[in-house]
């Protein structure tokens, strides 16, 4: 009897604690372009981005230097690079079933300097899917998962 009560009490306290956590969690913005700003400089942020993506089990496929090309053509801009990344199985699966999604893959993270700070931006995958209603039902789980993971990636910089 007492043990049962104990259990009940523990379950209850646990539920209460969870409820408090949920309630006090800040609302998640519906931003279409997820963006974070860090007070770290560009080079270290670029290196950290690759590591953080890999920690989230993404593979970094390629880094494109936008600034180099621009400067060569005489357009002055501070450091600006784009990281292409993804997971082979997910990319393969999605492009096989839905070639219309190829233009969005692999995923792209823009990393660029602003004075001695650095910004990181990525299109919210859920916003892309919202513009493709025919695929929404089937791909919602994957794209929501990506959004969640990408928010976690960005949160490590903010």
């Amino acid at each position: 009897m007492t043990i049962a009560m104990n259990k009940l009490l523990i379950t209850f306290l646990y539920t209460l604690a969870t409820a408090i956590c949920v309630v006090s969690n800040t609302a998640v913005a519906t931003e279409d372009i997820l963006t974070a700003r860090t007070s770290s400089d560009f080079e270290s942020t670029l290196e950290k981005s690759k590591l953080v993506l890999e920690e989230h089990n993404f593979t970094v496929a390629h880094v494109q230097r936008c600034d180099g090309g621009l400067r060569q053509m005489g357009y002055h801009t501070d450091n600006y690079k784009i990281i292409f990344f993804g997971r082979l199985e997910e990319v393969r699966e999605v492009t096989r079933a839905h070639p219309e999604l190829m233009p969005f893959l692999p995923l792209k993270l823009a990393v660029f300097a602003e004075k001695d700070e650095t910004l990181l931006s990525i299109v919210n995958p859920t916003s892309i899917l919202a513009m493709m209603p025919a695929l929404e039902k089937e791909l919602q789980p994957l794209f929501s998962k990506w959004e969640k993971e990408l928010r976690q990636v960005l949160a490590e910089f903010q």
Partner: protein
Amino acid sequence: MHSLSYKKTLNYLIWLSLTLLPVLASSSLYAQENGAALYKQHCSACHSNTGEGGIGLPLATPSVIESLPDSYIKKTIIQGRPGRIMPAFDQLSADEVDAIVGHMRLWGEQKVSNDTTPIKGNALKGKATYQQHCASCHGQNLEGNTLGTGVTFSRDRSLPVMPPALNNAGFLDAASDAMLKYSISHGRIGTPMPAFADTLTEPQINDVVSYIRAAHQQQAKPPVDEDALSLMYDSPLDFDETVDAVRSTISAYNFRTFPDRYIEQGLTDEFSSNKKQVIIRFCNFKKLYDAIRIEPRIGTILPCKITIFETEDGEVKLVTVNIKRYGSLFNNAQLDKALEAISEAYEEILDEVTL
């Protein structure tokens, strides 16, 4: 006996939590303590953590923060700036919005009055004054005609702070006439916005305020683009021929091409990559530079690319993004215009290869 006291404790706890939960739910205590955190999470990407500005305007400058009423900041947060990048944060609770305003007030108090009485002036006369004193910065039609918004230290700019659009529905709904008048009279010291208290008479300033109000009422909503986000074409050529044709057509249209990549390249080893999915990336540096100046985050959707792939039945197809529709995610009317030109080039290239 023992279990009875447990029951009592349990009852007490249930009662306690029922009373406490609504308090927590309003999260007012939480929100107040977290104004700084909320600002950092939602605003700092564009306005910087210290409020010195970025893609968005500077907010912490004393002459700026003193001229922004609380009610104006709140409405700005909730409604954003349609067509001028700042999104509507309509998912934030009233307490969270208050907390953000509370945090911003640490930068300086409000000096402009909360008066919401409309100011009476002559809009026609105001238009002439506006053309003479304001249009060079805020645009012929109040649209904010300089490339880009806010401040940047990363690229050349015509002004250290880009003048905001004054015909923006979000802005005008948030701003009271008193705030407009205050901003025009006092200017924003430390920014390009001059104080007009000595240059213009009070009736002249009232006329300009009326002109800004009148212009707003004529503003129409931008049309919504419902075209498909992804565009697919059949190629009349075989796979390799298609790749060559796309590449040579792109150069003929004054775009630079980057080395081709497979979609899976870098995600797996070279031998395992699907070689029948090739991405051709291309770029016109002048257009890219303009786009970056208008919206520095544009690298998330540019440079342009056309993907060529072969289906299991041996059909060759080209697929690209509808860049105009994709770009609409940035909530930036200037960018929409810039992408229109890029979009036309895309169409011509694809037509030439596939027809």
